[in-house]
């Protein structure tokens, strides 16, 4: 199964170097959304920065960006996509 890497960027990334094995891109989207919900749970900001400054970027094993999520979409009180 392919590996997917879920990095969290403001100006510089917090890197997910170990990655997660997932069945396909749809599963990677689900996983990203799940992680985003867990990170934003009961959390008004992250590392003293508003969630609007953070983006999750998902890469494949070659480092190619596959998709990204705006973390502000998952903020408490927002309608989750």
């Amino acid at each position, binding site marked *: 199964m392919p590996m997917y890497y879920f990095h969290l960027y403001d100006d510089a990334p917090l890197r997910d170097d170990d990655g997660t094995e997932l069945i396909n891109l749809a599963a990677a989207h689900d996983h990203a959304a799940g*992680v985003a919900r867990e*990170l934003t749970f*009961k959390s008004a900001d*992250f590392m003293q920065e508003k969630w609007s400054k953070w983006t999750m970027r998902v890469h494949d094993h070659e480092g190619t960006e596959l998709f990204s999520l705006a973390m502000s979409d998952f903020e408490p009180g927002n309608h989750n996509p």
Partner: protein
Amino acid sequence: MQGRFGTRFSFTRAIAQIGGRFSVIGAGRFAVLVDGNAAVSNLFSRYSEVLLAEAQQIAACNAVHNGVSRLARCLLQSADRIGSDELRMTQETLAEMLGVRRTTVTLLAQALKEKGLIRYSRGHLVITNRKSLESTACECYHAVHHDRLPVTLGIKL
């Protein structure tokens, strides 16, 4: 705990998260020991109360506190239990303890690392700034601190 009443069905499966030295006693023998000795029986009751309070606090914590605070709390509690700021714990173990995905633990740990509170490599985590990690942890860490919780409850262990 569950051996208190002798051999019967165990409600939980306990997993040792960090290696160390353990003592073992059969459930039947343990029940005889507790029943036959007032001091042990007493201690056991008091310890059970502390354990229950801790479980209640952690259940509440998981429902209302954010990931960074909970991870900080979890690391500090583990370090206190083993008496060392060096923890041999995998991110998978931490993910299970916190009820989140392993990816989430990775990103939370990276955040703590960026702030200079911890450093880690494969399965080996070191608390480098305890004071700051304690202020990052949620209030639950202080509420269930093993030195303070018995005192808070008015219990002498």
